[in-house]
């Protein structure tokens, strides 16, 4: 189905940034690998920005990572983006495919319900029954389409697919061909040049399937790290919470000091090191920016709709356990240790931290 730009919640990257892509294409002098819409350098400029042709920066943090991703796509290996949730893996994958192939919509959204057909091809059963196996009755998967057209296929959340489905990727990536025995002996689709696969995966969440080492070998792994700059992360959290709160008819925002508590707690527990250098036991739970936004959002809702008071450290403390420490008893210990030492010490000089400490101690 076509995207309707007027009403769609979110447009695909190649439409959102069509102007920029057009400008880059017009100015592109560098050699292009076969099947690529832009040269590797133009792809880089599309993602990291280029003021000269008015192209905005879309991915922050790790420029060499973007270089490596582009180079990986030029090779025979697939590109696997891993990292914590909320680190913009999917965004990067979308941007790369939009720039390289001009199409970011050849996506398989991985989940436990995905079967091999979603990676290879399925059938239009009405036609299949009426005509028998024919090209008309065959329904190609996004991956098959990408192979036929020499484009980038995206597989989101590969580790959520069952191992046998993941296995189907192995031969696909090494042979770059899909055999179709139903259409006759020797019938197959061979990937056009320009075809490659970008997968994103989460290796730490519970409920994901371990990747086989055969599959790992066929991918170049790139880890997308959380935002390194605390001030930027704080700004991002405030912005995202603000966007979410816009849905409710209530004007409220987190006070600066409370926001600082959220950012500090998440950064300390994520990095295993407090701002003053003290070592902190790292929980297994994902302490991503996305989760920080959830906590801040939850605290704000709690303060506005339930307790009817200004948001404080106490609201944050109450959200932490429910939102973050969902499934690991050991993590609760680590949070308690953090509250007992770091938060307690900070509480001596800061009221917000003192309130946070008191509530968190009772909650844990």
């Amino acid at each position: 189905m076509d995207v309707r730009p007027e009403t769609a919640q979110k447009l695909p990257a190649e439409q959102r940034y069509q102007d920029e892509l057009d400008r880059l294409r017009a100015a592109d002098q560098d050699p292009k690998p076969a099947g690529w819409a832009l040269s590797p350098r133009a792809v880089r400029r599309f993602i990291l920005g280029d003021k000269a042709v008015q192209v905005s920066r879309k991915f922050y943090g790790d420029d060499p990572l973007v270089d490596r991703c582009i180079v990986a796509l030029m090779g025979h290996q697939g590109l696997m983006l891993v990292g914590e949730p909320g680190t913009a893996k999917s965004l990067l994958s979308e941007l790369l495919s939009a720039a390289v192939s001009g199409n970011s919509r050849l996506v398989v959204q991985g989940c436990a319900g995905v079967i091999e057909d979603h990676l290879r091809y399925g059938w239009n059963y009405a036609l299949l029954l009426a005509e028998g196996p024919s090209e008309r009755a065959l329904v190609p998967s996004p991956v098959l389409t990408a192979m036929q057209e020499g484009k980038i296929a995206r597989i989101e959340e590969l580790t959520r697919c069952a191992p046998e489905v993941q296995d189907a990727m192995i031969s696909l990536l090494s042979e770059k061909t899909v055999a179709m025995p139903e259409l006759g002996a020797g019938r197959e689709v061979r990937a056009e040049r320009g075809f490659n696969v970008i997968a994103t995966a989460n290796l730490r969440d519970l409920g994901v399937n371990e990747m086989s080492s055969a599959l790992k070998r066929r991918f170049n792994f790139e880890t997308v790290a959380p935002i390194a700059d605390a001030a930027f992360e704080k700004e991002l959290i405030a912005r995202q919470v603000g966007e979410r709160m816009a849905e409710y008819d209530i004007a409220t925002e987190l006070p600066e000091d409370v926001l600082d508590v959220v950012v500090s707690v998440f950064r300390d527990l994520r990095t295993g090191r407090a701002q003053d250098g003290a070592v902190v036991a790292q929980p297994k739970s994902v302490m991503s920016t996305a989760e920080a936004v959830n906590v801040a959002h939850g605290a704000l809702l709690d303060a506005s709709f339930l307790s009817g008071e200004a948001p404080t450290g106490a609201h944050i403390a109450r959200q932490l356990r429910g939102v973050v420490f969902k499934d690991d008893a050991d993590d609760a210990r680590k949070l308690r240790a953090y509250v007992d030492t770091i938060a307690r010490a900070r509480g001596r000089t800061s009221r917000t931290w003192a309130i946070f400490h008191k509530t968190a101690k009772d909650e844990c």
Partner: protein
Amino acid sequence: MQGEAVIHDVRGRLFQPEAGFYLAPIRHHSPACAWAVQAMIRDLKPARILIEAPHDLSHLIPHLLAPDTVPPVAMASLLDQKSGPRLAAYYPFCSHSPEWVALREGAAIGAELRFVDLGSDAKMKASDPKETGPQALVREHGFDSGDYVRALCERLGCRDGFELWDHLFETRIGDGDWRRFLGDVGTYCAALRASTPEDQIQQGDDPKREAHMAACIRDALAQGTSEGPVICVIGGFHAWPLLTPEATAGDVQAGGRSEASSYLIRYGYKDMDALMGYGAGLPQPAYYQALWDHVEARETAPSWPELAQDLVAGFAAEMRRNGHAIPVPAQVELLRSAETLAQLRGRPGALRHDLFDGLTSSLLKGESSGSDVWRDRFVQFLRGTALGDVSDGAGQPPIVADARARAARLRFTVTDGQRRERSLDLRRKPTHLAASRFAHALALLDTGFATRNGGPDFVNGLQTGLLFEHWEYAWSPHVEGQLIEAAIHGDSLPSACLGKLQAERAALAENGRADDLPSLIALFKKGLLAGLSDELDSFLAEIASAINRSADFPGTARAMIDLHSIEASRGPLSLPNGLAIKPVMQQAFSRVIYLCDDLPNMRDEAIPPCLTALRLMSELLRSDAAAAVEAERFKEALDRVIKADPAPELIGAITAIGVESGRRAEHELPDLLTAQLRGSAPDLPTRLAGLRGVLAVSPSLLWTVAGVLDALDEFLNHLSDTEFLEVLPHLRLALSALNPREADQVAEALSRRHGGSAGDFSVHHHDIAPDEAAAGAAMELALRQSLAADRLEDWITGGQA
């Protein structure tokens, strides 16, 4: 003059053939610069070569040129201060240093060689006193920071100043046109200078240094240039003021006396890389060495693919030797990624950063954290392990003199090689304590000078109450040899000891034992014994972070006890004022509390050490150490443990701690034991588990708390003989926690219960094997049964049974 004018000035006047004066602006340890300097000297055949190195180190030039001096070597300079510690600084050379190449090339054509920088004493005095670690005598400004570097990095897509430098200049190694290359380096450095705020330049010692260097150039030019021109090899940042030496020098006189003493030492790439971290030259010297060797062998520009291939193959070979083979497809992918990245980034071939990126792409499978094992291995490979050699004529490093002076001061006889004995009264005589520290220091450096024959062993905590330490010692050439070896760690005894301890700690980390608490604490103790003080700060930090990673309850408790014993120690282990051990103890305490929550899930075999740890912790918290920590948190943690239903031993131990501290009511202990002993555990010994826990933690509770002995006595009374025999060994084991006096007390209490005195229960001991005793008991049982069957018990026991 400002900005662009400076840049144009440098560009236009670096080479002044009419005056016979050529500046060679360089970056230290840059092979590309070395190549250009080599070409320049071969081309111009100068009469004099001036080099940016402290003028007071000139006496080392002949040793540097000696055929048996092999880089990496370093000129070391030492300065005794009237107040404050002795300062030491190093000027390293490797075979790809432009300065080294200039020296060797200059000597080959018979040019006069001079060092022109300010004296090393002045440079050391000007250094920041807060900076710790080895100081570098070569300093470079702004190659890695500043607006200019940042802006260029952004424009060229480089992540830092190092990548930028490689991208702009190392790619041009082997360039035949040295004029263009050095002109570009000069321009780049002039731009760096132009974008550095003037007050920042004026603040440091740069103006003084530049005036001195200019004065040297002025003097050299005054000697005439008829035999050949003057070349000055200089850090690019200083090029601009030296374009007009007379003006910059003013009336400054070159040379002068230096208060520092200096000597040549062999150096290693490892140390060199560490020194680079302090702002001099380029890191990972083995990489640049490989680049230099490659170009030297080809005598022209490098074949980048070949170099990358050689490096990757060399790395793969080393990894294979170490048992981490890299599959060939991964090697191919590494090379492909690196080469393609280099193309994307507009480079002639894969540079250091491209290789790292290629390695990241091809070898890291899975999620990477900041430091990865493969990256670390590659860093180590590119850092290299080369060790240089110093000419025999270069004399003795001062650590030997330092050790001899200290020995004489502390009244050790070092004039002959005879073995002597010496007893040191550690606690009463400060001079003896100092002598002991000296002996420990020399032992730490493996010199073989002194061996401890008796007295307290503080490292292992044995016999620490002894007052005297007994040593046997002798000075020998071997001791001197070992000291010279140790000179690489430092120039004086304390700094060498510190360096040695740091090396041992690094070795621990390399063997995967970075978190080995007992070893880390032992290193810390060794440092204290050798008389180190605030320098040991980093060891404390290391211990603190190992504690924070520790997953071992008894080990962490042990570490806390150890730290406390050091804190409380007043003898040779006494803490210097500057070391704050309390925060580390507090951290250990927090970790112990954190690990308490593991106790309920302990495996059986892991429980005995935990019991010991619980005893130590509760003893510690009853001592004066309790003031340093919040003891209440430990008690709360124990409450949590007991709620989580741990093993019965632990329940016993924790209840005992609670009763002893008054947190729990006294009756809880007999109640617990009665419940356990009367319980339905089919296996009798397990019913004793609680008692084992109590005895392991606090044996005295057995007779001081009412009802405990009664519970045990009642349990034993209800046992049949067979059951008693089954329980006996376990009972013995549990009661072995008692010392003989306590055992007597228990016996007394028991005998009072049954009437009579303990003596009545004394038995004559016979050498009867257990199986014989069992056979005897079985026979007695059979007899009793037979008598009972015949209803003759009353007859045989006189009606008392």
